[in-house]
């Protein structure tokens, strides 16, 4: 049954790509609705800015719309979209019009790190959760880019070490050590903050 589903999924993807290459508007709408949430999560994980992430995802879909003919299907559509998103995220931070904002962003600013409201009956628990999440996001922002990339691809996209290595063009051993370093660094920083 799993094999059948995999084949059906591949056929669906192939069909979508063919329709995209034909320029069908409905196909593009389908692509956007299917992938926007996933790509936003990835973009947000790297940029840690909601507004920037939305613009990045917009640029990614526009890029796909313009360059779909260059997609040779030697990887899955998801892998291709992920690579484009990473490329846009990394270049986004380096655009000089954004550089000032990135370097001069106050670490005290918590607007983007406000967790969405949930229906907790325990206000104390909710407050504690908010504190921990806020602290975690601050520490993730402070991680060096190389470590954060690997951490995001693992935590958000759920990629294996092999897949991360292929995406970032680094060795599998490097993925393991960077991910370990990222976790160790985050735990140490969070424990220091608690003290």
């Amino acid at each position, binding site marked *: 049954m799993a094999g059948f589903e995999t084949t059906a999924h591949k056929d669906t993807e192939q069909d979508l790509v063919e329709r995209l290459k034909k320029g069908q508007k409905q196909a593009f709408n389908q692509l956007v*609705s299917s992938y926007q949430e996933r790509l936003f999560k990835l973009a947000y*994980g790297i940029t840690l800015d909601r507004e920037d992430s939305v613009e990045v995802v*917009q640029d990614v879909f526009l890029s796909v719309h313009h360059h779909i003919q260059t997609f040779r299907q030697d990887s899955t559509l998801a892998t291709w979209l992920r690579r484009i998103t990473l490329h846009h995220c990394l270049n986004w931070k380096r655009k000089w019009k954004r550089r000032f904002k990135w370097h001069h962003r106050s670490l005290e600013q918590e607007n983007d790190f406000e967790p969405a409201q949930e229906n907790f009956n325990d206000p104390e628990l909710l407050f504690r959760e908010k504190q921990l999440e806020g602290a*975690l*996001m601050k520490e993730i922002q402070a991680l060096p880019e190389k470590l954060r990339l690997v951490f995001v691809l693992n*935590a*958000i996209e759920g990629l294996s070490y092999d897949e991360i290595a292929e995406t970032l063009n680094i060795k599998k051993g490097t993925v*393991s050590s960077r991910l*370990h370093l990222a976790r160790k660094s985050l735990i140490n920083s969070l424990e220091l903050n608690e003290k």
Partner: protein
Amino acid sequence: MEKKCDVYTSEDISRFVDTELSSNQCRAFEHHLSLCSECSRLFGQYKGLSLAFSRHTHKTAMGIATLHLEHKLEQKIQCPEKKLYQNISGLFGKNLYLKLAGIAAVVMIGFFSFDPTLLGTPSGPSAIINSVDTEYTSVMIIETQKEKHTIIWFSEET
């Protein structure tokens, strides 16, 4: 915090969280977790990091206006086509003066693009630098005397 267990390193625990150990290693590690409080604690912390981050990102993603994004994309993709269509229909409209002006514009653009030297070769350097962005502190912009050839030189010393 230093890892105190003598059997496994913190990197082993990290790899176990991501199921990157072999099945034999996994089984041995699972057994070890039930006996070693230190490894068990670190395993929980590492696992918790990914879960908390994933959860926060998911909640943030739920808050974005997805319909707004689709509408924006539609506008950006459709807009250029509409403008082109309008230009063509305007060129062959009923207003004579509009027609004359349109023809004159097309002729002039075509003529000057065919022979750009009519506009005169712009003087100045071979390249005008609008901006430079680098992690290195030392950057020089040079223009040669004779041909005004532009050279950007940066040093990779940090």
